[in-house]
């Protein structure tokens, strides 16, 4: 399969259809779940899909080692390239590496201002024209709606979209009247898309809670394949 076809046939197109064509520049999206369900896998798959479309991605993380994140990307890429029998996989890989950068921050409760400053340094001085930013592990319990607001204006200014992962703790399973986990509720004004991951017997299910101006409660008919950790169309999984 060539790269273009692979992109076209990606299950992420299903996601895009459900959210009016995508997250869109200047917008923020959240993928929320309990710990260990597969948020990072989702982010990395979405990022890799963008990379395959020739977009530039910054992956922001708060772990201790950048090489772990890089191996996430390598693994997911290898998986996609292998299952879809991607042509010129080596060369495509090299071009992806050029368009991807990991920015790691050691402290969790980092101020939005500092984050923006560093992102700006990368985009402006580093000449890295980011289209998408993945923020894996932003602490919504410590953060404030103002910080997210600031990140949103940054996204609008530079013309990029930002995906966050949000961890829901065991003690906060409650949702508000819109189906939004309470810990995320204060942030919803500036969040365009919210997806939750729900463990199900076989594969983790993706559920759409908010898309742009609407609260919905829609089973995206997408799952996180428990074997490959890729977002997948369950219909296709079964047919195999």
């Amino acid at each position: 399969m060539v790269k273009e076809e692979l992109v076209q046939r990606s299950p992420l197109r299903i996601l895009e259809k459900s959210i009016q064509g995508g997250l869109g520049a200047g917008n923020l999206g959240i993928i929320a779940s309990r710990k260990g369900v597969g948020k990072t896998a989702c982010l990395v798959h979405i990022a890799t899909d963008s990379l395959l479309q020739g977009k530039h991605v910054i992956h922001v993380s708060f772990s201790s080692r950048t090489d772990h994140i890089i191996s996430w990307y390598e693994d997911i890429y290898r998986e996609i390239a292998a299952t879809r029998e991607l042509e010129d996989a080596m060369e495509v890989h090299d071009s992806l590496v050029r368009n991807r950068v990991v920015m790691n921050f050691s402290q969790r409760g980092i101020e939005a201002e500092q984050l923006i400053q560093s992102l700006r340094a990368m985009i402006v001085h580093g000449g890295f024209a980011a289209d998408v930013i993945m923020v894996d592990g932003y602490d919504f319990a410590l953060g404030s709606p103002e910080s997210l607001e600031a990140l949103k204006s940054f996204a609008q200014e530079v013309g990029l979209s930002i995906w966050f992962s949000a961890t829901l703790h065991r003690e906060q399973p409650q949702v508000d009247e819109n189906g939004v986990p309470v810990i995320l509720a204060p942030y919803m004004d500036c969040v365009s898309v919210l997806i939750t991951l729900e463990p199900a017997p076989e594969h983790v299910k993706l559920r759409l809670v908010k898309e742009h101006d609407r609260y919905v409660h829609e089973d995206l008919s997408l799952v996180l394949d428990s074997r490959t950790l890729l977002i997948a169309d369950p219909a296709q999984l079964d047919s195999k």
Partner: protein
Amino acid sequence: MEARIQKMRNIGISAHIDSGKTTLSERILFYCQRIHAIHEVRGKDGVGATMDSMELERERGITIQSASTNVTWKDHVINVIDTPGHVDFTIEVERALRVLDGAILVLDSVGGVQSQTLTVNRQLGRYNVPFIAFVNKCDRTGANPVRVRDQIEEKLGHNAVLLQLPIGLEDKFVGVVDLISMKAQYYEGDFGEIIRETEIPAELAQQAEQYRETLLDAASMFSDELAEAYLEGEVQPQQVIDAVRAGTLSRQLVPVYMGSAYKNKGVQALLDGVVRYLPNPAELTYTALDLNNDEEPVDLTPESTAPTVALAFKLEEGQYGQLTYMRVYQGSIKKGMELYNSRARKKVKIGRLIRMHADTTTDINEAPAGDIVAIFGIDCASGDTFVDPSLNYSMTSMYVPNPVISLAVKAKDKSAEDNMGKALNRFTKEDPTFRSFVDPESNETIIQGMGELHLEVYIERMKREYRADVETGMPQVAYREAISARAEFDYTHKKQTGGSGQFARVAGFIEPLDEGDYEFVDSIKGGVIPNEYIPSCDKGFRTAMQKGTVIGFPIVGVRVAINDGATHPVDSSDMAFQAAALGAFRQTYAKTKPVILEPIMKVSVEGPTEYQGSIFGSLNQRRGIILASSEDGSFSTVEAEVPLSEMFGYATVLRSLSQGKAEFSMEFLKYGRVPQSVAEELIKKYQESKNKESK
């Protein structure tokens, strides 16, 4: 086991640049009473540290060559090798670790695990060297030894345990709590030579208990005796020591010490640690290859009465002539004895045997198994194995990285030219990562090495030590040519000049090879090329690989297969087939769509976060790919892949954009394809220089 060998240690001190290895070595010499006054690296007294004995090292305040010294600590004899931190001199670390039994990995209490720490960690792993960690510079602002321990675990992947806790930090750092004896140790007196031991200060008591538990938990894994005693609540210090030792020797545990070499704190405890936890030469198994028996590995016995096996790991032109450093693995080396160099297949007689102390020496008569000594006046190459004449062993080889940059050098006059020849001859023998040759086309002398600093040091040494004043060209990187497509060939070499002629025909194909430089496949059927000429074809292709026609650099990644050909009963010869192969390759090369490859370096830049914009920018301008950046408060590290050709002069650029506060290191990563625009530029330059020559 011989009693003498039990009290012997051979250790190296390795770390990232400027972590304080030489400063620490100076203290070791002082506390072991090898020297009677401490001199600092770049100290105000202008003397310079003992181990940095070369004039150039003292001027620049960096270690260039590893230096060996022999000290005695609590009736243990320790051979200490201080190694350079700069990656250009990495071969010095490599060969030191090759022959050492243990090491001290020094870390900066602020910087923690840095880029060169990762390199050294890899080298330690390569030779299976057990080591202990020393978190130095606890007096610095921002010192955090506990966090450095975390990094050893997270970034180096070692199970690290603190044996101590700091008492005070930064400018209030005065001593350590020993978590085994559960005592506080204060280093006092003008040179930290007085150790005052007291009860643990009340405010640290709880923390000490907690970390001691962590230590006991970790150590219990290596000793049932300790585990049992721990359960019963009756732990003896010796049980902990034995357990930590077992863990360290098996490389499953890294004990972490801390201190400040500069402020003379914590070094004596570290020396105790060397004796306690690092192996004596008899505790490790070393093997050699028996050249008389198909290179079968043989275990060596570290006994002085066994037949001798020793490895020459380093050569050096000392004040008194050529010195060869040797590690004795089996048997002993005695003055006057005869040994056999298994590579050169030559016998040599051992004249003077000496022990080294940085820049001074003592004559000795014998070096027992396990020891490290130097020998005067034998001719050999670094890496040669010396054995008892009854044996024919070779120690397995050492990892030698390939040089990546080169420079043309030209002597200023005739006498300088003679001296330059001598100097190059010497340097290339001493240092396997430094090479020199004469380019047959331009007739220029080219030197090759690991980096700008590496070559700069040798040019400076030529001037100082050999009075060879030379002019240098621009540094150039070691490009490679490679093919990107398969192509067939069918070539006939025919010459008829008077008497006997030359005839050979070869046919087959050339295709890209993913791994390795060159592969030759013989698919000739029915003897159309007689067997005796197959090696001639191989040789001809190899000759072709040495110099590509795109920009005149070696060609790599090629598989050549021959599947057809023809001979002439009279006119075919070895020469004819070599010529045919060469001709076939040259004719077909263009059809294989050759590309130019350049060395890509893994670059790591560290500095205050406020400069990261400029750092990103500087890497971006150099065709760099930024892979990752890590911010840790006000300090950040950027990792990138940058073509070496773009990195010349980067040190100066970085210094000025960060007011000297950022530093970088780099090492060879891979060869990568040169972008089209750059390739065109290189080809143009090559054509111009060729035209100039032919005029």
